[in-house]
Every structure is written in C-alpha cells, then in structure tokens.
C-alpha cells in the first residue's frame, strides 16, 4: 500500500489528523457515557432504596395494624366475656356438649365480622391458661387440642403462646409450616385479661397472602424485579415468600449461609443493610438492596437483574460504540483524503524535482488546481522552463567559448603557412612568371584567389574567437542602420526600403557589436537576392523592446535549416564560414536580446533582432 508505506509526509498528516480528530471524539464519548452511566446507576440505586424503604414501611404498617387490631379486640367486652364463658363451657362440659355448641355457634357469628373487617385473618383462636385451644373459628385439627400435646408441641403456635405468657404483650410467631393445617402459617397473639386475672391468649392465624401480596407488588421494578423476604434459621436462609416465577418456593427454597449465592439476603437476615451487585438465589448477577425487618427478624431484598437494570446503559454504550466506529471510519477516510490531497502534490513536486535534478528539464508537473499548490506547480513549471533556457544558453556559450578557443588556435597556426604562401605568390609575381604563359598565369590567379579565401576564413575565425564582453554606451539604432547602409553600396540592383520608428530612444548598446550584427544581416539579405530585390529594414518600439527586422525577397531558407542557422560552422553559402550568424546571435545575446528568423522558400527571409530598451545585462 502506497499511502502509508513509503511517503512520510502523508503518513504524518494522516496520523496527526487522526489524533486531533479521533482522540477528542473518543474522550468525549467516553466521558459522556461515563456520566450517563454513573447517573443511571445512581438512579437505579435510589429507586431500589426507595422501593425497599417503602416496602419496609408498608410491612411495618401492616404488622402494626394487625398488632393494634388484636390488642384492641382482646380488650373489648365481647371477647373477654366470650373467653370466660367458652372457657367454663370447655372445662365443664367439653366441646361436644350442648352448652359449648350453643356458645360456639353464637360467638362464631359474632367474631366472623373480624374476618370480614380484616382480610388477612384466617382463623381466630382462644388459648386457655392451661394451654387448651378452647375456641376456633375454623374448627380445624388444632381445635380442642392442648398446645403441649404431642400434636402441637414444637409448633410455632406453642412457641408464640409460651412467649406471650411471659411477656404479656402482643407478638408474632415465626413463619413456618403449621403441621396441623399442612400449610405455612403465621400467628399473632396477645394476652386476654379478665377483671383481675389473665384469662389466656387470643391468637389470629394470619394468611400467608398478607405477606405475599405485599411482596408480590412489583410496581416500580422491571420484568426481572423481585421483592423477597427470608428468615435465617439453623444456618440457612429460608425464603418466606414465593419467588416471582416460582410460586411454591416459600419455605421450600433454602440457601446455606456462607455460600456464594444470595449474598444480599444472607447479609439481610444477619441484620445488615446495603446495596450492590450480588448473585441472587439463582446465581444470576443482580443489583440488590437488602435490609433487616426487625418485627419479623427477617431479611428483605429488593432486586433487579443487572442486564435489565443497566439495560439502558448498555444500549447507550452500544449506540456510542456504533456511532464512534462510524465517526472513526468517517474521520479515517477524511484524514486519508486530506493527507493525500496535501501530500500528493508535494510528492509530485518532489518527484518532479528529482527528475529535473536528474537532468530532464522537459519534465512538467501535471497539477491543475486553483489553490496555492496549483500556483506553486505553475511556478515550478515556469522555473523549470527558465532553467532549461538558461542551461541551453550556458551550453551554447560554453560551446561558443570552446569553438572560439579552437578557432583562435587554428587561425593562429594557419597564419604563418598562409603568409609564406602569399610571399611565394608575391615573389612569383615579381618574377612575372605568368607574363608569357596564360596557363601559368591562370593557375597563379587561382592560387591567389584560394589564398584570399583562406585568409578571409582565418579572419572570420579570428573575429569569432575575439568576441569580448560588450561595452555599453547610449546609441541610436536608426543611426547605426544608416551608417551600415552607407557602407553597403556594392549591390546596385537591390532596393532598400527603410521603415523607421520615429521616436526611437537611445539605448545602452555596444555600438561596434550592434554595427557588426546589422551589417551582417543586411549583407546576408542583399547576398540572398543575387538577381535583385528589395531589402526592407523596419525598426519599431514594441513595449520594453526595440525590434529591428531585415526582410529580403530572396530565395528563402529551407525549413529544415532554420533551426541550425545560428549554430557556428553551419553555412549554406559557398563562401560562408558559418560563423556570421553565430557571431550575430552571440553579440545580441550579450545585449540581453534575441534574434529570430522566419523564412518562406521563394518569397524571402526575415531576421528580427529584439534589443531591450532598458539594459538587463
């Protein structure tokens, strides 16, 4: 993969973008999740505490009202009278006697209304000081028995009555199986007093539903919510209310104290109060509030399964995780795009620099953008172009310098032999060798012509090798052209047309150099029109440049030669050395100007020299 492997810049931009965007996102998400989670948990705890405290208050009220009810009834005239009469009838005649039955039937009717008033009362008993159950509304198996009989001994009723006898105050029994009805039972009992003595005890058998209904009211709790009561007995926790989803659990489900299950309830039955995450009787993790119920010496627990209680938190967490993943994906994508967008062009430019540094100045950056990077790449391309041009100029001038050296050397070395040849020819002429022999004379003339030609070539070469830096003085281009035209008078069949700029400013030039350039160009133009023609010389001020063009109506230059025409030693003329235009080009370049050529075969050629008005070199 290219984008993270090799390119440091895009990798850095990518990593930093990710850090500055993803980290705050994650921190914010984590922080807000944390706040929500804490407040939700606190809310759940508060709810459990509120329900638990409420239930405790209700239970207290229920038990207190039952307790108050029995105390109030036990001191009323009817029960006291009934107790005395029934006690006597039981003792004297027995429960099968007519006397007792009459009384029994009478008081059944009278006391039935207690049951009507209080739903939770199942049965009502009178227990005499001798321990005989002398009255019962329901006439179940305990009726007529003695609490110390083997049948009743050890039951919760016996325990309760013995306790009340001593304390002489109302009390509740334990909640347990009552063997005589084969059901769980709870009794409340209070002493009954006659005019001056204790008559016995009055007891209500409370329906288990009284507790169950209270416990099974799950208002405020979720689907897994439970309110349970349990007692501690014999090293065990014994549940006294049915489970929400297991009706027959009351007194049936037991947990050993010290085991890992139902820790909350274990603490509650030991008198502790608290809240927290614990395992319940099923081994399920729940959030639970446990507390002790002193009236019954029981524990109470209000709980909800953790997954339900914390459901909204988990839901929110999942939503946060989902959104975070989505956003992170989006941010990664954005960071990738940004890093590529910034780094790509820089890499392109870097690559471009490498290529150009390697020498390929024709390389162009292909970045078409409207921003600063686009501008940068345009400037880069421009720079490369300038570099290429200046390098070409440098190569050109180096070549010219080398050629100049060579030309200087060659011409220097050829001068002496050429001089000797001239001397010999001169001497032959002194001797008038060709005077009487036309053939000899012709050959001597040819020799002379060839020597002249060689001499001219050497002259050109020398001139080329001696080109020096220009020395600038203000000069007028129009005037220089007039001067050279005065010298070029050997071409009678050429018409010269001058189209001069009227307001030609003086500019900084080396007059000798410019003179030589214009002389060469004018002479070339004239020589190109052997059979006559028109040479138009036009000068014009074009912006920052003065343009001077020489247009002839000569034979023209083939297009394949146009590109080479300014190269040294390139010539199409029989007599040419191929240095004239090269020298012109060099001299014009030395002025910071340029020279160009346009030609059409058979129509003519135009050389245009551009010289800067303000000196740049």
């Amino acid at each position: 993969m290219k984008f993270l492997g090799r390119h440091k810049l895009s990798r850095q931009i990518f990593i930093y973008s990710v850090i500055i965007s993803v980290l705050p996102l994650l921190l914010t998400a984590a922080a807000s999740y944390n706040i929500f989670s804490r407040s939700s948990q606190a809310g759940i705890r508060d709810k459990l505490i509120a329900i638990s405290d409420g239930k405790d208050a209700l239970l207290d009220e229920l038990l207190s009202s039952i307790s108050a009810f029995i105390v109030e009834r036990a001191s009323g005239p009817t029960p006291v009278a009934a107790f005395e009469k029934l006690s006597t009838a039981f003792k004297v005649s027995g429960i099968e006697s007519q006397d007792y039955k009459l009384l029994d039937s009478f008081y059944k009717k009278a006391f039935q209304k207690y049951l009507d008033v209080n739903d939770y009362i199942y049965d009502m008993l009178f227990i005499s000081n001798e321990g005989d159950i002398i009255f019962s509304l329901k006439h179940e198996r305990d009726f007529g028995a003695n609490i110390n009989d083997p049948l009743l001994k050890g039951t919760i009723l016996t325990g309760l009555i013995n306790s009340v006898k001593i304390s002489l105050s109302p009390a509740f029994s334990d909640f347990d199986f009552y063997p005589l009805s084969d059901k769980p039972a709870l009794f409340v009992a209070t002493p009954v007093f006659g005019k001056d003595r204790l008559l016995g005890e009055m007891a209500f058998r409370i329906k288990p539903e009284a507790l169950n209904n209270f416990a099974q009211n799950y208002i405020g709790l979720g689907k897994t919510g439970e309110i349970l009561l349990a007692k501690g007995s014999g090293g065990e926790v014994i549940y006294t209310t049915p489970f929400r989803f297991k009706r027959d659990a009351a007194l049936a489900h037991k947990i050993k104290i010290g085991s890992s299950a139902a820790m909350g309830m274990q603490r509650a039955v030991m008198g502790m109060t608290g809240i927290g995450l614990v395992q319940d009787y099923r081994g399920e993790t729940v959030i639970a509030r446990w507390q002790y119920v002193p009236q019954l010496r029981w524990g109470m627990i209000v709980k909800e399964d953790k997954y339900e209680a914390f459901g909204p938190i988990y839901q929110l967490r999942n939503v946060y995780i989902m959104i975070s993943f989505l956003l992170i994906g989006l941010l990664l994508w954005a960071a990738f795009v940004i890093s590529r967008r910034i780094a790509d062009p820089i890499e392109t430019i870097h690559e471009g620099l490498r290529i150009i540094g390697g020498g390929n100045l024709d390389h162009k950056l292909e970045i078409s953008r409207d921003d600063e990077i686009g501008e940068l790449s345009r400037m880069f391309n421009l720079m490369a172009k300038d570099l290429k041009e200046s390098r070409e100029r440098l190569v050109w001038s180096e070549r010219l310098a080398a050629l100049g050296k060579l030309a200087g050397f060659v011409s220097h070395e050829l001068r002496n032999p050429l001089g000797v040849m001239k001397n010999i020819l001169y001497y032959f002429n002194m001797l008038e060798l060709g005077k009487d022999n036309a053939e000899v004379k012709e050959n001597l003339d040819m020799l002379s012509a060839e020597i002249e030609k060689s001499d001219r070539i050497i002259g050109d070469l020398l001139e080329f090798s001696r080109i020096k830096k220009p020395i600038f003085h203000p000069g007028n281009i129009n005037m220089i052209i007039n001067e050279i035209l005065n010298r070029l008078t050997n071409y009678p069949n050429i018409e010269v047309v001058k189209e001069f700029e009227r307001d030609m400013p003086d500019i900084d030039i080396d007059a000798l150099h410019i003179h030589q350039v214009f002389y060469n160009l004018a002479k070339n133009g004239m020589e190109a029109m052997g059979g006559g023609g028109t040479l138009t010389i036009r000068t014009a001020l074009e912006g920052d440049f003065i343009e001077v063009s020489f247009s002839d109506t000569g034979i023209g230059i083939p297009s394949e030669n146009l590109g080479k025409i300014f190269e040294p030693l390139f010539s199409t003329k029989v007599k040419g050395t191929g240095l004239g235009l090269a020298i012109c080009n060099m001299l014009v370049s030395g002025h910071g100007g340029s020279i160009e050529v346009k030609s059409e075969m058979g129509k003519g050629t135009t050389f245009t020299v551009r010289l800067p008005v303000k000196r740049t070199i």
Partner: protein
Amino acid sequence: MAGEINLLIVDDDVNQCKTLKNILDKKGYLTYTASGSEETLRLVREKAFDLVIIDLILKGDKNGVEIFKEMKKIRPGIKAVLFTGYGPEEETRLLHEAIEEGMLDDILRKPIWPEEIINTVEKYTGGEKNGY
C-alpha cells in the same frame, strides 16, 4: 656595395624567412635571416643592420623583446620592428614592453601581406635602393 641597406629577418619559421628574403632581395635590399636568438646576436655583432624585423614569439627561444634588449647592448640605436599574430594577453603585455624599450611602434600583424612589409621597410630605411 656602398649605400646598400642591410635587413635582418628573425623568425623561427625558416620558410617565412626565406620567402621574405626572396622578395626583399628582389626589391634591392641585402637581407639576412636568422631563426634563433644566438644566430641573431652573432649577426648583429658582425654587421650593422638598418632594420631588424623580428618575430615576437620564437618557439623554444627568447622572445623578440628580450632579443631586442640584447641587441641594444651591442648596438644602441638599432631599429627593430616586431611582427606577431593576435595572441593571448601575454602578447599584449609584451607589445607594451616592446614600445617602452624603444622598438618601432609599427607592429606588423600576421598574416603579413608582402606589400606591408615592403612599405614598412621603405618607411624606416628611406625608400627602396634598388629599383624593381
């Protein structure tokens, strides 16, 4: 021959000397040639020359100005003209030195046309002696 004009041409190029001698002799001068400094100084000791034409650079030998200085020791007032090509800066310096030492300032530039050398000789020797 009484009134004859003696010329000395000094050049390491023997053919140059020889062909110039041909022309100048034909013009009526008595022309001597030398291709080295020792030969030159020997000739100068032997003979009084009206004009010495001396190449500035003699390959592997003293240059023309140095030879001129030694000639002056032998014959103060001797007239000499240099001929040379366009050379490097070194030559320009030597040319200045030559003028300061009293050499003729008509320096002949190579390639020399025979007419030029004849004109120069005529100029400093008072015209041709032996008509051609």
